[in-house]
């Protein structure tokens, strides 16, 4: 079972993503701001984090920076969603931390494929180790 964490302050987007990415072998958690997301990750590290940039209390880039600073979460794959006119900050996050940046509005099919690719890539080392 793969665990996904979706973090966005827009309930409609969270709901839509949950529907778009659902699959029998995936468990999808949601958080509505950065702080909530960090709390959930601290409790248990998911296999993929999808995070929005502009959110109340704590923004997505801060979440990414915090996760990169901790050895437990350094390798957590992250997809950053950004609706800002200039996605410059997100681009910096991409360069610095290797996070994947998707500009809103994104093509849902592309996001679904991307998520599948990442999750499969993550399960490969596990399989080889068996």
């Amino acid at each position: 079972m793969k665990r996904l964490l979706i973090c966005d302050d827009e309930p409609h987007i969270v709901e839509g993503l949950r529907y778009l990415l659902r699959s029998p072998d995936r468990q999808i958690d949601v958080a509505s701001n950065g702080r909530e997301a960090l709390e959930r990750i601290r409790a248990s590290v998911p296999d993929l984090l999808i995070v929005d940039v502009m959110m109340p209390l704590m923004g997505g880039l801060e979440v990414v920076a915090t996760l990169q600073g901790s050895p437990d979460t350094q390798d957590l794959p992250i997809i950053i969603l950004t609706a800002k006119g200039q996605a410059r900050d997100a681009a910096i996050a991409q360069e610095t931390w290797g996070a994947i940046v998707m500009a809103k509005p994104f093509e849902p099919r592309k996001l679904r494929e991307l998520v599948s690719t990442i999750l499969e890539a993550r399960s490969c080392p596990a399989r080889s180790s068996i």
Partner: protein
Amino acid sequence: MTTDPDDPDALQAAITHNVSGGGIGLWVKRNLPPHADIYIRQYIGRSHGDWIPATVTHCTLGIQGYLVGAAFKEPLEREASDDVVPAAEESRTRESRVAAPAQPRPVKSLQTMTTRCGLACAAGSCMGVILGAWLSMSLCPTGWAAWVSPFATAIAGLIGLLVGRLVISPEVRFLAETVAAIRRLSKGEPLEQVLPRRFGKERAILREALLDLERMLLARQQHERAHREKLEELNSLKSNFLSIVSHDLRTPLTSILLYARMLMDPGIDLEPPDQARFLNIIADECTRLSRLVDDLLEVQRLENDRVEWQIRPANLAEVIDTSIRVFEAMAQSKSIRLSSACPEDLPPVAMDSQRIAQVINNLLSNALKYTPAGGAVCVSAECSGREVLVRVKDTGPGIPRDKWDEIFNRFSQLSDTNVSEFGGVGLGLYIVKWIVERHGGAVWVDSEVGKGSEFCFSLAACDRPEGKRSADAAQLIRRAVVCDAAPEVVATIAQVLRSNGYEVRPAHSARRLLAHLNEWEPELVVADLLLPDMDAPELLQKITSHPRRRGFRLIVHSYVNSGTPMKVPGVDVLLVRPVSRDELLQAVEFVRQDRPRKGHVVLVVGAPADSREPLLRSLRQAGHAPLAAADVAEAALNVQRYPVDRVLVFDECLSNSWPELDLLRLEGSRARIAVVSHRGGRQERQLADSHGVGFLPCTPGHEEHLVELMASQTTEEQEALTV
């Protein structure tokens, strides 16, 4: 290609093209202002042509530097132009140099000037000798002078040359050193270092002139920097605004695209209820988009004053009820308790009902958006003085104090960080502010982080039919700005002022206070000078030197006891906290009187109840500004607070031998004290003398005579002073 231009200020330039001898296009390394005079000459190898004067026609930043268009001042001859301005294909092997703008042709050595002056003297001497020889020859025709004169002429010329050089050389040297000093100064060396060492008197003059020049340049630089900073600020506001608008447009678009694609995707198996839900979400997000576009257009209309206002008396409670009904469903879906509280006797309010509904809807929509499930939102209205206050209170996350003013601002309501504390508020609050202020009201927020926010706006209540008195009073409505960093203090003071017929605008920062002073022209300013964004002395200086200073009265209230109003010049009343409601009312009452022009601020202490009012009235009639205090302790406070000129103490409130009078002698106070005695005996007069205070005997019931007595005493004192 040469690399050593003999003029250090010359710019190297690559010629791009020439315009048939009349102009030229070239790349240079620094910006040249339009119409600047420049000189161009051509270099081929180490040889170069003449300097040709030209004028800059345009200069734009390009890939290789600045692309300059320049027109030659005089038309070049065909051959010359071909010679000086290389053709395009040759431009890589040839290079031109452009002298710095306004750079004169290089001045030839100043040494030659000295020589020229010496030669002039020599020529003068020679001519003098020849004239002398000619005269002596005509007077003494023996002819010996004819032999002597060539030698004399040569010697005189030589002496003239030497003397001329000697006389003129310090001046020329000074001139040379002046030129050198200006050159060094323009390269940024400090003034004291570049000044010539000698020439005491001339040095001082030169120093003054250069200092003036330096000051002028500095002022211009500062002006330009301020201008640039202002432009940069505006530009960043604009970018920020665009970024916010684009964020707010993209978010609903993302939802729409997401759900529409899912509906279209054959790979996703959707249940019929899900399909309906998705379509609903798409419709909702479309509404949201169109609302945002409406808001943008609305702001445009409001700002360009293209809104037709229909302001007439209307029932505010009805408007609030309608809004509550609109939001009931939304509140229920979020499990938020939504309530309203309007008193039945709420007076009608002069307003454009549709616009005020828009205000309440915007505030309610924000409140519901930010209040978490299980919270409460309440809309209430109340009558306060001549105003009706509407409050929208929520139990949301609250707004930090430094954002209170900002959130009503069009551009900066969203911080440009990636944390959208107020994300999606959009233009709602800005529109609220516009509409309320257009009604002559004010809007403000009071909030505590973690507990909730209360948005409050005020509207003028209409006169009730029987309210003839209030109609008169309405004409007396005056404007006041109340400024304090603490909102509860502002609210309390504002309430006192409103119930006294003032229209009040709150401010929580010095910046806001000064903005109100400029834009709104209030008659009264009640301010705490300890504000987060400006030092107290600076703020006080800005207020008291305001061009409209005669137009408003200033009450300063503060925790800091900085002495009497005399020590804080320009302040009408200085209240040290804590201040009671009555004390505040007294201060307001005091500043409501006209500023005493000829008269004084007179403090009446301990006057018996029956004689107090007549005395205060007589004082007012005589052009004084009276104040009253029950006893000496209260009077002492008043001397600290008001710019008191005279204190009249009735001896009834003093104990034996009047020790209390010392309480009234405060450092920095100019108040002159006089004791009023109804007994008026010799003993009292002696006591007054021993205390060094004035003495005014008075028959009970004839207190109005005190005014004349006081005036005559003042004149006597003045005469005594002049003698």
